[in-house]
């Protein structure tokens, strides 16, 4: 009996929580219950990020997803949850069709995930981080510093890479960072406009707000 691998134990815990609550999201009929299950599932995925060595990403997942997106989603749920809308049933035929497609897709993905023997596990237990590219004189050792430098256009982990093929992508992600910054501003302004426009238009969200073309609200 070997020593218990705590990394594996915590992986099993987080994986079971993530998968179990993801299945609960699918089978739950109540929209509020779905939102609560999704919160737990996303938090467990953040734990898996921590286990994979991506600490900054796990923290970002917790803050952006669990803290931000879920608050937004739950607000949406609360604003639209009204009587019969809380739980809407789906027909049995759609469930059968979706389950068949889902099981087939899962079989394909499972076969692909377990096909390569190089993915089975680390040959030695290299839980202590040792990156061959990263030497002692690196500017920064932590993932957050490397991510920040990469967003500024410096790939710190590739500077000392001798292999020409592996040196690809040296330029980092400065352009993508700029694009996504502008994208976020545009999206937030657009979302604020879309969510506010209904007060003046009242009827349909996209049409011009003329009183004559106002469509009656169907019950």
């Amino acid at each position, binding site marked *: 009996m070997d020593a218990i691998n705590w990394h594996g134990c915590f992986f099993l815990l987080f994986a079971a929580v993530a998968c179990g609550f993801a299945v609960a999201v699918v089978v739950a009929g109540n929209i509020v219950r779905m939102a609560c299950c999704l919160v737990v599932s996303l938090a467990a995925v953040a734990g898996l990020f921590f286990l*994979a060595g991506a600490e900054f*990403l796990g923290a970002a997942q917790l803050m952006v997803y669990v803290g931000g997106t879920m608050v937004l989603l739950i607000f949406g749920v609360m604003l639209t949850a009204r009587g019969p809308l809380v739980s809407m049933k789906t027909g049995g035929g759609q469930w059968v069709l979706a389950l068949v497609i889902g099981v087939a897709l899962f079989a394909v993905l499972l076969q692909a995930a377990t096909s390569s023997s190089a993915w089975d596990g680390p040959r030695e237990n290299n839980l202590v981080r040792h990156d061959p590219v990263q030497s002692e004189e690196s500017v920064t050792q932590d993932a957050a510093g490397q991510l920040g430098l990469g967003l500024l256009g410096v790939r710190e982990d590739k500077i000392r890479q001798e292999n020409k093929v592996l040196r690809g992508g040296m330029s980092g992600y400065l352009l993508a960072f700029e694009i996504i910054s502008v994208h976020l501003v545009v999206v*937030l302004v*657009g979302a604020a406009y879309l969510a506010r426009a209904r007060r003046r238009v009242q009827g349909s969200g996209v049409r011009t707000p003329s009183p004559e073309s106002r469509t009656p609200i169907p019950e």
Partner: protein
Amino acid sequence: MSLFTEPIGLSHFLVVGAVLFVCGVICMATKRNVLGVLMGIELVLNGANLNFVAFGSSVLRPAGTEGIGMDGQMIALFVIVLAAAEAAVALAIALSYYHAHATVDVDRGDELKG
């Protein structure tokens, strides 16, 4: 060969990602609520994100091999940001749809049907 004593590898993470992805796809296909479809999209994005992080992780890959380095975490970070933006826009659209049709049933949004 027990999972409790063997070190976990890349394929374990890929299986979890596959489960999340398939749950998201089924959720998107079967839910009639707009917000339920949105939650399915979040699940799909998280499954893909988990794969990116696992492939970029220096802990999981076998010793002496090169992974995709920081690219995995970087792409996952962009996916998180884009998912947050997408959720904001989709919720604004859902609220607008709710105020226009007084329902959040996606089957009722068939005005563009030819």
